[in-house]
Every structure is written in structure tokens, then in C-alpha cells.
């Protein structure tokens, strides 16, 4: 660097300040200050504080009382709602995460087919994912209403005499929520669509010359190249399903879900913290949630070597 600047310097002249090398520390600090403040007061401090509170009994008004591991014990031995919420959440994750991925791949694959009109179809497929969750849920509780909703009208019309009661039936309400989730598949689908369009055409042409069937080229070309996206959706799906709240909350409010079939983990934290004001116990629930999501994510991360193909290397490799 000195060599380069000295080219323009006459002997005896004082070197001009080398602006390029100087790191504008104050500028960097000022630019990051809001984020720094945020991470300290809205992330770091709350994390430490909720970790501590998870070992206390705390109702906001009185000082927290340290009770050791009681909160964690209570979860497993005294709290039926916790077990119910955990079971419901695991059930819906196991069913809906793979279902969502398959459906997203299918919808995205359909979108790669036509030569014309792709953008119109894409807009229609994507639109539902934009609808505010509250509105979407209210709309679905109407559409799936067993008495006057059009879905059951249609089902009866095609000869199904006892269509399910959907949101009103504890054994069907989760399915209705899953369908609601599939309807809003748009954002996941768009990522898969980008993945599909990235697959080089030459690969398919080569496969066709070799006499591969459509299914074979999907299985051995498309699917391996989509695995990074599948991996990503799996991870975000697990994190998302433990935070699944709005749709379930609104739907159970709409239909009075007494049997708690739509009572999920996030609902349980909400009820414990903000309805019962048991902040200590709710913090323990939140930390247990963090633990579960971390374990699930780690499992997916650890197994990825076996099934995720990165053509050009990746962040996680």
C-alpha cells in the first residue's frame, strides 16, 4: 500500500492520510448501535432473565421465589395440559411438515410445466400465503362449517353422506388446520420453484437419451438437487411448528374448542404466561421448547450428510 501511495508523492512531502485503510470506528459503532441495543435489551438480557426465572415462581407483582427444578418437574408430572399440548404439537409436526414439503414440491413442479401462463398460475398459488392468518382462519372456519359451509355441501353433492365436522370435531380439527396450512403453502413453494428452475435442463435431456422414465429422472435428478431446500424447510418447519399459534388460537376461539384438540405448545405458553401470569413456569416451558427445537435441528443437521447434496458447497457444510 505504501508503494502505491508513494508513487504520487514527491520527496519531502507529508503523506496524505490513507483514507482507504482507516476503519471508521465511530461510524461502525453508530450504525450498529440500534441493533446492539436491541440485542442486549430484547435478546440477551431476556434470555438470561427467562433462564433464571424458569427456576422461580414469579407472578410479576411479587419478587421471584427460587424453587429449583420444581417447574420442570411440574411439566412432566403435574401438568396434563402440557402433555396434551406437547402431544398435539408433535402430532401436527409429524404429519404436516412432510405433507407441506411434498405439496410444495408438487405445486412448484406443476408450475414448471407450462410454456405459457406460468406467472398467472404462480400468482394464484402464492396469493393465499399473503392473507393475514386471522382472516384466513376465520374464512376457513366458515368454509369448513359442517352446516352451511361450501366444502361439506360439495362433499355431500358428490355422494359423501357423513362428511366430517372439521373444526367442530376434535378428531378432525387438526386436519382442518393442516389443510389451512397447505392452502398457504405459497412461500415454501416459491423456494422449491427456484430450486426446480435451477436444475440444468441438460441433465434431463441426458436422462431422456439414456431412456430414463419421468419418475426416474425425478427420483435421481430432481430430488437430490432439491435436498438442500428440503433440509431448509425441515429445519424451519420444526421451529415453526413449536411456535404455531395464531391459526390454532383463532380457530379454537371461533368454535369453542373445549376438548383442547387445537391446544398446542405455543398456546400453552401463552395461557400460562399471559392468562395465568405464571411467569416462572412459562419461562420453564419456553426453555424446554428451545431445548426440543435445538435437538430436532441438530438431528436434522447431523443426518444431513447422508441425504443432502450440495452442488456448490454451503453454509452448513
Amino acid at each position, binding site marked *: 500500500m505504501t508503494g502505491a501511495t508513494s508513487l504520487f508523492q514527491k520527496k519531502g512531502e507529508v503523506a496524505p492520510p490513507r*483514507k482507504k485503510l482507516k476503519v471508521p*470506528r465511530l461510524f461502525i459503532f453508530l450504525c450498529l448501535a440500534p441493533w446492539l441495543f*436491541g440485542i442486549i435489551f430484547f435478546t440477551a438480557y*431476556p434470555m438470561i432473565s427467562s433462564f433464571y426465572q424458569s427456576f422461580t415462581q414469579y407472578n410479576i407483582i411479587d419478587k421471584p421465589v427460587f424453587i429449583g427444578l420444581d417447574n420442570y418437574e411440574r411439566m412432566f408430572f403435574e401438568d396434563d395440559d402440557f402433555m396434551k399440548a406437547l402431544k398435539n404439537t408433535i402430532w401436527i409436526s409429524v404429519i404436516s411438515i412432510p405433507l407441506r414439503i411434498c405439496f410444495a414440491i408438487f405445486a412448484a413442479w406443476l408450475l414448471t410445466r407450462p410454456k405459457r401462463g406460468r406467472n398467472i398460475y404462480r400468482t394464484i398459488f402464492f*396469493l393465499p400465503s399473503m392473507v393475514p392468518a386471522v382472516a384466513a382462519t376465520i374464512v376457513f372456519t366458515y368454509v369448513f362449517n359442517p352446516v352451511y359451509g361450501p366444502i361439506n355441501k360439495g362433499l355431500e353433492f358428490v355422494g359423501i353422506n357423513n362428511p366430517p365436522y372439521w373444526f367442530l370435531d376434535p378428531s378432525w380439527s387438526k386436519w382442518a388446520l393442516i389443510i389451512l396450512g397447505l392452502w398457504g403453502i405459497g412461500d415454501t413453494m416459491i423456494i422449491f420453484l427456484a430450486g426446480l428452475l435451477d436444475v440444468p435442463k441438460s441433465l434431463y435431456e441426458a436422462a431422456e437419451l439414456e431412456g430414463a422414465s419421468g419418475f426416474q429422472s425425478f427420483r435421481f435428478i430432481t430430488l437430490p438437487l432439491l435436498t438442500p431446500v428440503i433440509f431448509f424447510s425441515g429445519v424451519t418447519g420444526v421451529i415453526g411448528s413449536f411456535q404455531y399459534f395464531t391459526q390454532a*388460537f383463532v380457530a379454537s376461539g371461533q368454535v369453542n374448542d373445549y376438548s383442547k384438540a387445537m391446544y398446542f405448545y405455543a398456546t400453552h405458553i401463552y395461557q400460562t404466561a399471559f392468562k395465568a401470569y405464571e411467569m416462572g413456569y412459562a419461562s420453564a416451558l419456553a426453555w424446554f421448547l428451545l431445548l426440543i427445537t435445538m435437538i430436532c435441528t441438530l438431528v436434522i443437521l447431523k443426518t444431513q450428510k447422508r441425504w443432502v447434496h450440495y452442488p456448490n458447497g454451503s453454509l452448513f457444510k
Partner: protein
Amino acid sequence: MSQFTDEKLKQIDQEAIILRRKKKFKDFLQTVGDHSALITMSVIFAFPLFMVFIISLMSAGQAETRSFWPKPFVWHNYIEVFTTVPFLKWTLNTMFVSVMGTIGVVISSVPAAYVLSRLQWKGRHTTFLIILGTMMLPGQVTQIPVYIIFAKLGWIPSFLPLIVPAFFGSAFSIFLLRQFFTSIPDEISDAARIDGCSEFKLMMRIVVPLAKPAISAIALFAFLGSWNDFFGPLLYIAENPDLYTLGIGLNAFKGDHHTETSLMMTASVLFMLPVIVIFFFSQKVFIEGVTLTGVKG
């Protein structure tokens, strides 16, 4: 050459024509098949939206019958929804929270993303990793103490807890902007720096204008994120009906108004409409944003 008699050549020609026709026919069938599948799916995706609109035009009584078509069309619902519930107030509240939140996210995230991508300094990789980490962190872990902070500040119920955090940067937006800023060639900045341009000026005059698509993407995501948000308002404003946002208002509709289904659908249509309109005008920005980061909002 002798084996290719005229007759044989003719035969080959004929076969080629038949083959080509067959191929054409096959392609045609495939196109028809593809489009019918796509149209079926489109109908399924559009159906609930179509139904809300139809029901929003029915009379309160008719909405709870098995009829499929409004008879008569009650356009009056779209006026009534403003008089039976404080719909205008809810809309203005939602608008206020969303606009303020968007401003907050943009002015706090742009500079952070700028120093993370355009400047070399010690600790910038660590900072970036922390940002990635906070994106993966389940909100519930921090929710309770944050709520307690706001409660102690006396900010509940008010809009402050919904707006103020936006001014302290959003990990998602910083991440998206950083990815985009990194793609702007360094030569541009170097040239400006040699000319004695200050970092701030460089950011505002050169990088920000070049990054307009990315900035509009994060602004859009931030706006829609708070427009569609339900959990935040549920925690912080649900105690005070004067502060209701559309989501909270709509959810409370049932309890307050004995399920006037058609009006509820009218309100839903009006709630979704801005989002749908925004989406139609900014589809490209939107889809690119989702593709780049894999997440919405």
C-alpha cells in the same frame, strides 16, 4: 444409394410425418393435461377467497343458510361494517403500527447491514453469526422478560411495544440487506472513498440508491409482517378496545357481535384487500425476497 429408391424415400417421409404428428399430438395432450391440473389447483387456491367475497355480499340471514349465491347482493355490508364496529379505527391503528414499524426497521437495518457488508473490520463475522443465530431463536424464550420490561415501563396497553423494537433492527432484514449489499461491487465505494467521500454519504448517496429493490423488499416484508401480526397486538393492546388492530378486532368480532357471519366476511375482505393489492403491485420484489432468504417477514 441404389437402395434408396423413390418409393422407399417416400415411405420414410411418410413415416417421419406420422412420427412428427404423433409427437405433436403427445405434446398437445401434455399441454392440455398440465393446464387442466394447473387450473384445478388454481380453483382450489382461489376458492376460499372467492367464497369470502361472495358471503360478504349476503344478508346476515342468508350467510347462515346453504345457499351459494347472494340474493340479493347486499353491498350495504361494506358500509355497515364501518358503523357496527369501529372498523375505521382498527384500520387506522393497524396502519399506524405498520407504517411506524416499517420506518423503524428500515432506518435501523440499513446502516447495520451496510457496515456488515461494505466495511472490513474485526468482529464482523462474529456479529453476522450472532444475527443468524437470533433469527433461529424461538421468540417465546425472550417473550416473557420483554413483556415484563414493557409492563414495568407502563407501556401496556399501548402501541409502543409494537413499534419501538422495530427501531432496534430486525435480524431478518439485516440479513437480507447484507446479502444484497455484498453483491454491489467494491470498486464503486473505493472510487468514492479516494475522492474523499465520507462513509455516511457513501452509504446514503451510492449504496442505498443501488439497493432500492432490496430495501423495498424489507420494507414490504416489515409492513406486511406487522399488518398480519396477531400475537404482538394480542399481548400488548388486547386490553384496550380503542387500540385494537384489525387482527384483534376481527378475532373479537364473534364475542361482541353474535357471529354476524356476513359482516365478519366483509371485514375479512377489507382486511385482506390492502395485502392483496400490495402483492399485485410488488410481486417481483416479493418473490425475489422470499427466494433469496427462504422466509417471509
